[in-house]
């Protein structure tokens, strides 16, 4: 049975999640990818306030397609996370507790997750049409000039994810593959 999670996600609750847990996220999450992360970290370096409440926030690495009339959002699946690795430790230190993406993360990101209490979720890559159905409302709150890369505030309901890396550094990419290969022996 998947665990139901409500955002914002406290550090304490983030630490309770374990690698391999299937979860359904409901609440507010924020979108940001390469260009937005760069700008957020430039603001942080200057000690300025970020355009989203970063404490206990979950950031979804996505650049959606444009919404058609009557839809809150277009297709909206995850982008590859390693491109955010240069920026994530800064945001985690500022209070970010959840990241949603796909693919590997750097040791620096995992160290920051362990130190501060954060979790890395995976959504299924290439399933943007399916995932967009869980987005009930979307609103650009910063960097509109970036188009698909703008920061959006999303209200999601039962958004399906799996914990890839937990706050102890356990990694489903390693354990899942090993379990499968062991099953063949």
């Amino acid at each position: 049975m998947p665990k139901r999670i409500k955002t914002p996600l406290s550090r304490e609750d983030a630490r309770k999640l374990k690698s391999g847990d299937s979860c359904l996220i409901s609440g507010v999450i924020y979108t940001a990818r390469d260009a937005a992360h760069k700008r957020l970290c430039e603001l942080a370096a200057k000690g300025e306030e970020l355009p989203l409440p970063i404490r206990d926030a979950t950031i979804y690495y996505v650049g959606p397609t444009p919404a058609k009339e009557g839809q809150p959002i277009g297709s909206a699946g995850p982008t590859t996370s390693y491109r955010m690795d240069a920026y994530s430790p800064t945001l985690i230190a500022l209070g970010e507790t959840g990241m949603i993406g796909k693919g590997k993360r750097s040791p620096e990101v995992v160290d920051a997750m362990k130190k501060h209490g954060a979790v890395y979720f995976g959504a299924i890559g290439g399933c943007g049409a399916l995932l967009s159905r869980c987005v009930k409302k979307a609103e650009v709150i910063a960097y509109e000039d970036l188009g698909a890369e703008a920061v959006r505030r999303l209200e999601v309901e039962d958004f399906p994810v799996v914990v890839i890396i937990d706050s102890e550094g356990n990694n489903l990419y390693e354990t899942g593959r090993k379990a499968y290969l062991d099953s063949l022996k």
Partner: protein
Amino acid sequence: MRDLNAEEIRDVVKRLCIDANCRLPSDMRECISKARENEKWDTACEILDRIIENYGIAADTDRPICQDTGVACVFLKIGQDVHIKGSIEDAVNEGVRRGYTEGYLRKSVVRDPLDRVNTGDNTPAMIYYDIVPGDKVEITVAPKGFGSENMSQIIMLKPSDGLQGVKDFILKVVEDAGPNPCPPIVVGVGVGGTFDKAAYLAKKALMRPVNVRNEKPFYAELEREMLDKINALGIGPQGFGGKTTALAVNIEWFPTHIAGLPVAVNINCHVTRHKTEVL
């Protein structure tokens, strides 16, 4: 000499951009269904079910299958007996502009790789021209997502590295990519030619239907062998473990220099999209 207005090319490109992004080709759909039947690992089965559900929703609701609607790769086979009235390049780019705007597709192209300002209309397209016999123009639009493009690699092997070197390199690229390019993947391989020709062959290999093997038996056998080897790695759908790491390995080859053995591996995700029309 047959006359053809460039506007006709524009309109076909526009239509193909939208269609390719919302409807997965039948060869891919059949291949994924077959992979699902052959998959025994629970997590992998669940993911493949979601993938099948997703392209169904996309087709039924005219939504892009994936939010990365790609850079538009446009392959033109132009018959040498056709006279095109107007600029082909402008026509293709205008078709991409209209397709990506009117089709609610994502604009993912930046005008300069270093200043990174979005062009706002997904142009320019990557255009590949082939001059062929005849009086027809064949147009293929292949939206290429970059999650998988970024996991592609090229190497200039030595002739002494031989067949084993080629096999090792293909496996290394897939292993390095791991979960990043949204497995199950399609692996396009270009062997021979020059540095750039090998990369072009790898891209071209991805245009071949996944259920069609190389016409040369040696390469057809190599494609089967490499698919088995890749699917023994255990990476699985999305990298969570399982048999289905790749759906197909397509190899294209070309003569090369006595001193060289270029090998390029171009990775594509499970949303391998391309649509073709002939004018």
